[in-house]
């Protein structure tokens, strides 16, 4: 079977779903094109301002695209490509798409407020606290998982390690020249991109070979420094230069697949049990970001909801962007399944999912003349760069949550826990300690936490829909499935991690929080008080 068929099937399924199920959701939820959105009613020219639908779609998709939809499907390919592909399709259409569109819609109807506010209104203060705790735990798991994954990548592809180190230097120099010295963005970009290409070339000449532990420590030190420095030094220039890398990689990957048309060689289904993992529930928590991800609601209700021009755009931006992310996840599963099982296991064992993905895309890009080693190094650099920026932002955000949680302003001396360096140190030490356990052990925990975050968003959506007299089953049924999957996964993980205090702590903590969340859901749905239809 040819892999292009997978992209075609995914595209057709998503198009049909968008036209039918997306329209059904819009109709049942009462999306009203004649109603003014907060972008108009609260226009402040800064955060609240309308943006055209395709522009907003591009911006929102750009925000939600990350390394998650790549790592998850490749990690889950141990069960065979068919279950992963089916979950990407079904998950994106009935779970992730509903979640993203619903989070965006509920935020628009609550004056563009963040999801936490919607949760506060629909579920109550306990819901808000749960949201903060879930978000913090998930961010720690992001730090742990991605630090491990990037370290593995640097060990397997030392050319990318050199290029990444040089990239940091290029970013700092770019920041100084463009943001401090006033060099124009265009000239700075041309020089920046040229230096990036040079970094990739120098990486192939001087690969930096270090052990995994050394890389982990270096990366944790980098995360600490990067997250406390002002944004103009590293975060901003990296984020900007990353976008060149990412889109070059995506375009190269898709064009390469179309030119090469690789055949699928991996077994369609391997076994229900592989090693210590069972297909249910592990498939569903491993392919998190590619099917349903709680983080999307943070992004959607954060900036996107404030820029929706007309309510009719919500289907395109919320539902549509999740479906496009499904196509990205499909590309990831292709890189895992066009090679045979032996090669897949070898690449996965050597350097994790990024090694599989970079080898695949590197191979696809040889179809239009790019040498394999250069292509692989470039893709590994792109994903690592993306992961490193996610690590920086995740550490910052985890620090903000931590600081806000322990803020006791007005009651005397501020707690030392709210100090920027102390809170970052605690975050990095906890995340880092977990990182040493290995991405295979952490990723299901991260997936579970992410699904629970999504379940909380679906709960808020379901409660609001019910209280305002709207059809809510399209939100509550996926929510119940998320609870079922994550509870079973966490029980399995608790037993699997009995010998490991840190992993056991996270498994138990998430399990307890999931039970608390279910009790909140029960209480919220039992409430008889209704909010008049908004």
């Amino acid at each position: 079977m040819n892999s292009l068929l997978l992209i075609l099937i995914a595209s057709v399924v998503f198009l049909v779903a968008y036209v039918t199920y997306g329209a059904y959701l819009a109709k049942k939820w009462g999306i009203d094109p004649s109603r003014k959105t907060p972008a108009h009613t609260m226009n402040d020219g800064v955060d609240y301002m309308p943006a055209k639908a395709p522009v907003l779609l591009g911006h929102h998709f750009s925000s939600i695209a990350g390394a998650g939809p790549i790592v998850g499907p490749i990690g889950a390919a141990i069960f065979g490509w068919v279950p992963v592909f089916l979950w990407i399709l079904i998950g994106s259409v009935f779970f992730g798409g509903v979640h993203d569109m619903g989070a965006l819609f509920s935020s628009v109807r609550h004056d563009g407020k963040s999801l936490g506010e919607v949760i506060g209104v629909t579920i109550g203060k306990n819901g808000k606290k749960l949201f903060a705790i879930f978000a913090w735990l998930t961010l720690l798991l992001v730090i742990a998982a991605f630090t491990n994954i990037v370290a593995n990548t640097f060990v397997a592809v030392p050319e990318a390690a050199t290029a990444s180190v040089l990239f940091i230097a290029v970013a700092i120099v770019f920041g100084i020249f463009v943001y401090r010295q006033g060099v124009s963005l265009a000239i700075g970009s041309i020089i920046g991109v040229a230096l990036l290409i040079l970094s990739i070339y120098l990486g192939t000449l001087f690969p930096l070979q270090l052990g995994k532990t050394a890389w982990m420590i270096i990366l944790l030190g980098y995360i600490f420094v990067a997250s406390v420095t002002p944004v103009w030094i590293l975060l901003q220039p990296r984020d900007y230069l990353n976008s060149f890398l990412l889109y070059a990689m995506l375009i190269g990957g898709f064009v390469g697949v179309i030119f090469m048309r690789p055949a699928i060689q991996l077994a369609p289904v391997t076994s229900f049990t592989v090693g210590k993992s069972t297909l249910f529930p592990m498939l569903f928590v491993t392919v998190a970001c590619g099917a349903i991800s709680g983080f999307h609601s943070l992004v959607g209700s954060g900036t996107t909801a404030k820029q929706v021009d007309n309510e009719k755009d919500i289907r395109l931006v919320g539902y549509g962007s999740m479906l496009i992310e499904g196509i990205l996840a499909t590309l990831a599963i292709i890189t895992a399944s066009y090679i045979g099982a032996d090669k897949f296991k070898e690449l996965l064992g050597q350097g994790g999912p990024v090694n599989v993905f970079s080898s695949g895309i590197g191979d696809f890009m040889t179809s239009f003349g790019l040498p394999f080693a250069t292509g692989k190094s470039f893709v590994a650099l792109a994903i690592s760069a993306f992961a490193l920026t996610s690590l920086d932002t995740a550490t910052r955000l985890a620090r903000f949550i931590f600081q806000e949680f322990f803020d006791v302003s007005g009651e005397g001396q501020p707690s030392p826990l709210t100090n920027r360096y102390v809170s970052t140190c605690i975050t990095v030490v906890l995340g880092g300690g977990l990182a040493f356990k290995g991405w295979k052990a952490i990723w299901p925990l991260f997936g579970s936490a992410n699904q629970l975050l999504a379940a909380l968003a679906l709960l808020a959506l379901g409660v609001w829909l019910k209280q305002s007299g709207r059809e809510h089953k399209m939100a509550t049924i996926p929510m119940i499935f998320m609870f079922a999957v994550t509870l079973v996964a966490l029980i399995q993980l608790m037993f699997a991690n009995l010998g490991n205090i840190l992993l056991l702590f996270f498994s138990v903590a998430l399990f307890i929080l999931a039970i608390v969340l279910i009790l909140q859901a029960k209480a919220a749905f039992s409430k008889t008080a209704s909010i008049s239809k908004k």
Partner: protein
Amino acid sequence: MKEILENIRLFFVGALDMQGKAHGHIENEASDTMDQFMLLCFGDLLGIDLPTTYYALELLPYLGEDLVKWNMRMSDKKSIWEEKAGKLDIDP
């Protein structure tokens, strides 16, 4: 057909958003810092007893234009970390 191509172009304008990616974080931080400065100067208008408000009145001609919108933004602030989450584009 023209409309479809124009929409695809606009999609890439939004996805790439080079200006936003080049300056977004800095602009957000600068805007937050300015709001905090305004809070120090005119916190009295939000009901916070600050002696600086009396002395900051002479800055009113320079800062007054944004005063109403600043008031709206400060009243809307509920959770700092959630606002940061939206602006930092956190999604792994």
